């Protein structure tokens, strides 16, 4: 590896150590009252917790015989999205997850969980295969957002996400999406068009990161806490607005305290949800999914002009 990248890694490690200490002291009660007052910001911090289980942590605990497949058959393989086929309680399913890294080296490899167009196209390829072989699709959402870089733009980041949204609406197999950590805007949503959409208790799902939102509205990225509260991005808020179907329980103070228990809660929910969807035929699944999103956001009035 070049000196330059070693230097960069060293700098990132330092930054990470600083952030970690903030996370730890913060949870221990640096500003306990404020944290409690703002449950949305607490959820943001738990969703980004350095020890929070990632997609592969759930995949190995919830599913058996996971066989990962790679590549979009056009440009390359994106390690920020993992996917393949596995068994859920004996039933073969396709499973696709957005994957973050644990340490710096992994994070550089996984691009901090920020997918590029080839990642979304790989996911779509796996989903089309699932339709062909009549397998349900389960997606795990956890990304700060789709990667905002030159190469991603050149290869059509927006197009890749848009096509994924439209095609997921077309598939005649059950689709279940679970937000396991950060549901970062369109980058997460691209895999989120499910017959059922769940959020883990301490996950978040948002149109914009609280930092970017704060930078826009308060011209100060450090006011992310306020922005998080304003955006109403925590699981109870999304359930309240009818944007998700259910909240999945997390153990103790969060999924990071007990991976096995967190996975067990998810597994139970997936199995019962899939059982419910299994009674629907392909066209019913398409229609149910369509109607569900069709109703979302009926927050307007049609009064005549004053």
């Amino acid at each position, binding site marked *: 590896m070049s000196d330059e990248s070693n230097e960069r890694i060293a700098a990132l490690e330092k930054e990470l150590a600083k952030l970690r200490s903030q996370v730890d002291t913060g949870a221990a009660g640096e500003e306990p009252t404020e944290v409690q007052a703002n449950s949305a910001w607490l959820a943001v911090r738990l969703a980004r917790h350095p020890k929070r289980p990632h997609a592969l942590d759930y995949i190995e605990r919830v599913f058996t015989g996971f066989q990962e497949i790679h590549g979009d058959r056009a440009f390359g393989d994106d390690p920020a999205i993992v996917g393949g086929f596995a068994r859920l309680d004996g039933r073969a399913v396709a499973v696709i997850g957005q994957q973050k890294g644990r340490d710096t080296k992994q994070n550089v490899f996984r691009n901090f969980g920020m997918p590029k167009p080839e990642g979304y196209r790989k996911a779509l390829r796996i989903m089309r295969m699932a339709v062909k072989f009549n397998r349900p699709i389960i997606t795990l959402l956890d990304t700060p957002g789709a990667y905002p870089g030159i190469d991603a733009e050149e290869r059509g980041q927006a197009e890749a996400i848009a096509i994924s949204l439209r095609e997921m609406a*077309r598939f005649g197999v059950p689709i279940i999406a679970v937000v396991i950590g950060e549901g970062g805007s*369109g980058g997460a949503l691209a895999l989120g068009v499910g017959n059922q959409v769940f959020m883990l208790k301490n996950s978040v799902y948002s*149109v914009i990161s609280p930092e970017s939102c704060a930078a826009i509205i308060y011209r100060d990225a450090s006011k992310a806490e306020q922005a998080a509260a304003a*955006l109403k991005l925590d699981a109870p808020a999304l359930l309240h607005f009818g944007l998700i179907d259910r909240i999945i329980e997390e153990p103790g103070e969060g999924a990071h305290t007990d991976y096995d228990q967190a996975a067990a809660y998810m597994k139970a929910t997936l199995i019962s949800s899939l059982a419910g969807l299994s009674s629907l035929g392909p066209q019913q699944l398409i229609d149910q999914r369509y109607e569900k*999103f069709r109703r*979302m*956001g009926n927050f307007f009035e049609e009064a005549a002009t004053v």
Partner: protein
Amino acid sequence: MAWFTRPTTNIKRDPAEAERHVKTEGLWFKCDGCRQILWRKALEENQQVCPHCGFHFKIDAAARLKLLFDDGAWEEFDRDLASTDPLDFVDSKRYKDRLSAMQRALPMKDALISAGGTLNGRPVNICVLELKFIGGSMGSVMGEKITRAIERSITRRAPLVIVSASGGARMQEGAISLMQMVKISAALMRLDEARLPYISVLTDPTTGGVTASFAMLGDLNIGEPGALIGFAGPRVIEQTIRQKLPEGFQRSEFLLNHGFLDAVVKRPDLKQYISQSFDLLLN
């Protein structure tokens, strides 16, 4: 006796006189593209395209519809849909106040006009985003109006055109805005299955959740010359990679070269281009 006195006190102004004086302010201004001095009337006659360098000035939604529909006439749909501020969102001002200020300043309730009419004799539905209305951002109202327009296209077997100009999803409606991306994309899936053509016209600027949903889903994606089109905005990318972006990055011509636009069409040619496409696909 004073040197100057008014011999008569009741001089009547000729009412036609006021019209003889022409206000010159604002008649001339500089082109943003070539810095040449332009006469506003010449620009208006050329559909707000610089006659010297071809720079495309932004035009509002109503002006766009006038250019596309026959005789500049159309029927507007769902014009009274208005957001109810579900998040009770407050930034530098309350979202409710921001909305009502916009609704007073512009002749619309949200950032989109949904219209039906004929284009070279063919019945079509055209939705145009209004950039001046909170940056053309997409919230629940835009999501609903576009979805209804798509459903109307399916029922009436009429092709669809959407002209985009937007910063993306509307932050002030949070995840509700986000879900409009799915709602519209899913409706476009039905339009696709109904085998009706959809032409997406991307104008300056089209970014974020609008590009990452309906604006990139046209059977044909057409860009206006020089329009900024992308997923992430250029400032976000510069902050991420900590470098200046190359000249022309994320412009229409760049997207054409990278395979994401079918054509870059000049504004005066747009109506004919759309009309011919529909002819080739449907007749």
